[in-house]
């Protein structure tokens, strides 16, 4: 148990910070810890959480994905056309939305792997393309998403916010098993040292392609969930989510140099970021001063996460 905590200390610190922030938030909310309040909070957190998962897959292989927000915008606009009508049509539509996201990711991967272009440049370019297509689909916000489905996804199951259930499924149903597969280990190998991974016989091209495709897939999921929350398509949502997804993974203990961190950390980082924003809500801090306070809390949270560098007897340990 202690070993487990030690080897996952980054996630543990993030989780601890999250619990403290959530307690403060529920403490200051006039309504307190009710299902409704938890649902509002969880919906906000999960949108960014899924975007952070997308960013995680790009970052863990020592890349970065500046198109996360753009993939969300595109899949959100596609969803606004497909998620209304018959139950069967909607089911196909949901799959199609996620496939659109995954295809965007695959395109990113192909450009990075076979175009040999730095991820930061490649995804910056593809982001403009994705937003461009989204704008063609929805020049102004509009469209509709089936309200019953939207309610089912954004309210609660037996008092537990559906968004939390989805986050749980992503972790227990997907991440924990996935991490033990060859592909899951390959991500870390590639992110830690591409040369070593290559010499160990890992197909680095395939792993990188898979990582970017997974990033796109989670971007698509984020866009899909955004559609459930807003029940409409809007091409203008890209900007804020890309940068926040990067902040969230850093906050969740995922190192931008690759090879370190986990999906759980990325989710926790996103939840922390959104809880800080929610905390401002009933704090009574003037709105123009809120970005300052958010920034200060963010800096403090990252500093706590990085504090174990100070304990290191040898500076090289920090890079091990």
């Amino acid at each position: 148990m202690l070993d487990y905590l030690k080897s996952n200390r980054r996630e543990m610190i993030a989780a601890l910070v999250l619990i403290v922030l959530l307690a403060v938030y529920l403490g200051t909310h006039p309504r307190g810890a009710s299902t409704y309040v938890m649902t509002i909070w969880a919906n906000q957190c999960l949108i960014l959480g899924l975007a952070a998962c997308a960013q995680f897959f790009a970052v863990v292989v020592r890349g970065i994905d500046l198109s996360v927000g753009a993939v969300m915008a595109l899949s959100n606009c596609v969803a606004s056309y497909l998620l209304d009508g018959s139950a069967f049509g909607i089911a196909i539509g949901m799959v199609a939305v996620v496939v659109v996201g995954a295809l965007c990711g695959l395109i990113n991967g192909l450009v990075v792997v076979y175009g040999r272009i730095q991820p930061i440049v490649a995804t910056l370019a593809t982001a403009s393309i994705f937003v461009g297509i989204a704008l063609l689909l929805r020049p102004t916000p509009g469209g509709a998403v089936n309200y019953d489905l939207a309610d089912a996804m954004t309210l609660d199951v037996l008092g537990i916010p559906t968004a939390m259930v989805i986050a749980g499924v992503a972790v227990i149903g997907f991440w924990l098993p996935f991490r033990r597969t060859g592909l899951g280990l390959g991500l870390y190998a590639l992110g830690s040292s591409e040369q070593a991974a290559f010499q160990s016989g890992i197909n680095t091209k395939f792993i990188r392609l898979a990582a970017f495709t997974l990033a796109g897939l989670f971007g698509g999921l984020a866009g899909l969930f955004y559609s459930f929350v807003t029940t409409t398509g809007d091409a203008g949502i890209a900007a804020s989510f890309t940068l926040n997804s990067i902040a969230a993974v850093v906050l969740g203990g995922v190192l931008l140099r690759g090879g370190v961190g986990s999906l759980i950390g990325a989710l926790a980082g996103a939840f922390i970021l959104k809880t800080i924003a929610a905390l401002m809500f009933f704090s009574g801090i003037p709105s123009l001063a809120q970005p300052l306070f958010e920034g200060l809390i963010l800096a403090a949270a990252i500093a706590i996460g990085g504090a174990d560098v100070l304990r290191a007897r040898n500076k090289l340990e920090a890079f091990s």
Partner: protein
Amino acid sequence: MKKLLLSSVIAMASSSVAFADTYRPECFAPAPGTSTISYDAKDGPYKIAFVNGFAGNDWRIQAIQSAKAWAARPENADKIDEFTVVSVGNESAAQIAAIDNFIAAGYDAITFIAVNPTAFEPVIRRAERAGTVLVPFDNVLDTDKVVQINESQKDLGALKAQTVMDILGGEADKILMVNGLPGNATDRDRRLGMMSVLENVDGLEIVEVVGNWDTGTSQKVVADALATHGQFDAVVSQHGSAGSINAMQDAGHPIVPMGVDGENGVRMLMSELGIPGVSASQAPAMSAIALEAAVALLEGNELPQTVFLPIPQVKSDALEAGVNYFPDLPKSFNTGTGYAECFTPFTPEELLGQSPDDS
């Protein structure tokens, strides 16, 4: 908008057409063919919130100040238990979460400027269940389920065009139209309003330029239009009219009738140069009217579903320093400090005494 029109047609068919027996129709004037809405009366004092989206321009800042000035007036302060303003930025999910939070916190009414006209259907239903009154204004929604406060953008456009044509005695050869941000419903409706008047003038040549509602852009495009077209009989401008006036002055264009916006600087120029015409605009004090409407609904009064407020306007001969424009205030100050039909407009001191922060 199509949806809105359609829904108002349906509302008309269901025989609940708004008559003059709604609450204070001189202020909360019904839009043509709209239905009416009322809720069971609640005892005050009330908890009310204003959930703004974007906060980065003069209009929005003055809207927040107007809302606070309204809440600070003694006759309103008595009715309010708590009044909160938040600005959530340009993201619809964040605005939905903010509204949900206030519903959860037991607020009686929430006014807001919608980030997105189609994203609020589920939150409207949650508000209905919780008994919270929602009053969107300015950027209104594609819905017929809540009371919405706005000015008729078509009437605003038509007013400017009609005024200049009246001054010209109904005859003109060439008129310049300075439009707003393209691809936007507000720009479209204002333009349609202007066209509805100008199209009926025989032999009128209408020159249109895109001014983006911006003073600098307007100045440039009007200068270009003057260079290529020479002289105009009149000019109508949606917003950023100070730029149009400056460009005409620079080109040595004679003074002609103009329909312009309601910025302080525009009225200063109008008065200084003796430009005949009308100054009218979407007034930021609309935020206060939305709060007034929220309280009226909470007290059990009936209001039209779509309210088109009487457009605050000043004809050039009625311009008076210190009354409807303020030479010692910044040019960017919006003279839309209130709707005289609803309550005494705010004085600039009342507005400027309010911080643009949350309360």
